[in-house]
């Protein structure tokens, strides 16, 4: 297998502005298959925007962003990049799981229905099959007994694990996590981190924005420091944590 074939994410010079405010100023970033890439950085540095660009929740203005073999938002035909339609986006996104800071569970569905929804409507599985698969995924995150609870009946940590199960059920090639533990009470952080660690050890390719440096050290293959729309430093977690760069140092000292 060639080097580029095992690249699941390949960003080159990615730029993005909101109005006149340039949030991403030329991001270069790579993720290999099976790797866990952790991103840290101060608030407003563009971490979420970059993560959301990877599944097209934000559209980039310039540069190249290839995710899971596709130039996100375009397909090349006859030497031109044709813009995707609604169906192309849906097909692409069904291969990429995303977990949000605020869980974003469907409030009118119970845990099982949350996990089954995309299986039924996107993967077109039969209801029975989808529910069976959903139950397996809930079991995997340790919530088999909570499958009939609505989001508001679950703790934050449980909601986030349902959200993880919901993404995993689609059997994604890549999982994106945007500060999955930041909205949780401290005593609930570990149950979510443990779920994610198990996932990482199972070989899932993951990009994780988090301030949990311990997670990066334990299971991360790389740790990137974002600052003002660029990747200021990226290295193996152990090495980056020992960096001499004063800006990175002072940030890391604060989050630890």
């Amino acid at each position: 297998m060639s080097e580029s074939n095992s690249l699941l994410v390949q960003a080159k010079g990615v730029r993005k502005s909101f109005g006149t405010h340039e949030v991403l100023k030329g991001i270069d970033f790579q993720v290999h298959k099976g790797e866990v890439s952790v991103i840290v950085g101060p608030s407003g540095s563009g971490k979420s925007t970059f993560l959301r660009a990877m599944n097209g929740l934000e559209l980039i203005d310039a540069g190249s962003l290839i995710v899971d073999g596709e130039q996100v938002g375009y397909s090349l035909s006859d030497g031109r990049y044709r813009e995707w339609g609604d169906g192309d986006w849906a097909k692409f996104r069904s291969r990429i799981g995303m977990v949000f800071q605020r869980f974003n569970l469907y409030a009118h569905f119970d845990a099982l229905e949350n996990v089954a929804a995309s299986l039924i409507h996107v993967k077109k599985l039969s209801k029975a099959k989808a529910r069976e698969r959903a139950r397996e995924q809930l079991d995997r995150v340790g919530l088999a007994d909570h499958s009939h609870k609505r989001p508001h009946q679950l703790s934050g940590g449980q909601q986030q694990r349902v959200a993880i199960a919901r993404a995993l059920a689609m059997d994604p090639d890549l999982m994106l996590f945007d500060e999955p533990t930041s909205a949780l009470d401290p005593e609930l952080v570990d149950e979510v981190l443990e779920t994610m660690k198990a996932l990482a050890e199972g070989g899932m390719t993951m990009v994780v924005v988090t301030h949990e440096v311990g997670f990066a050290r334990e299971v991360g293959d790389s740790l990137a420091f974002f600052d003002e729309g660029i990747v200021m430093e990226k290295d193996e977690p152990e090495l980056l944590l020992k960096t001499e760069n004063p800006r990175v140092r002072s940030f890391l000292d604060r989050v630890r």
Partner: protein
Amino acid sequence: MTRRTAPFIGPQGEELSIARRWHIRRWIVGAIALAAVLWFVSIFVFSDRIRWERVGEYLFYEHILNGVVATIWISLAATVLGLVLGVLFAIMKLAKNPVLKWIAEAYIWFFRGTPVLVQLIFWFNLALLLPYITLKIPFTSIGMRWDTNSLISGDTAAILGLGLNLSAYFAETVRAGIMAVDRGQTEAAKAGGMTSSQTMRIIVLPQALKIIIPPTANEFISMLKTTSLIVVVAGNDLMTNASNIYKQNNLVIELLIVCSIWYMFMTAIATYLQSLLEKRFGADRVRAIRGTSIGQRMLDAATGAIRLPVRNGGKGAR
């Protein structure tokens, strides 16, 4: 206000009683108010011009009972039409397609901008504009053709006029309901591979409807009374039927009393059903988005109590 019942304890541990205050002014004001009301009611009750025995007689008159039934089903049909079209136009207004958006806005502007009374009369007289309604497959001779006058009765005109008008107001409520659904869930659905229309259908609309449905009960209650406008286009509703009777026998006040009793009765039943609906959907949520009802405003506008369709400042966003 509840009054203190426990006595005070004095320095030697003895009980000290409380001298009650009589609130003389409250009693006087209350008595005056009661007298005024009694006097006003007595004008009606003891008036020798109102023949109460005729009121009792007409209350269960067949023509009146038929009118009650017609009023209920016209109200139901118009409310359902308003709800369905309201959802449709709300979605169109939120659509990315500029043509759909423009059409929805023009529709809402037109139907909110003209009095419902004008619309009722317009629909009733549709035959002036289109003597025949033809549905035909283009470039063939297969099709159907109806005489508009036979198609648009007073009741049909009423359902169309009231329903279309309600939908224009309702579109705003539905839009508010759709926008009240947390954007994070929309993003999660998209991230999970759903298309925009799946996201709307499976995630957003079911939640928006939970917010929208309870106030429709309110609209229905108003609609029950708004149907009295049908009298101008002669349908089969309660008000029209009552007016047919009093035009013959001149018992105007008596029949208006009969109507009022029935409208109040229907409102009471509907209000009770609404309370069940509120229980089902959670009263807090219902109250949060309840403002002046659309139907009430339609009635006000039609009857000349000029009130511009200002947006409520409250959470209702309409």
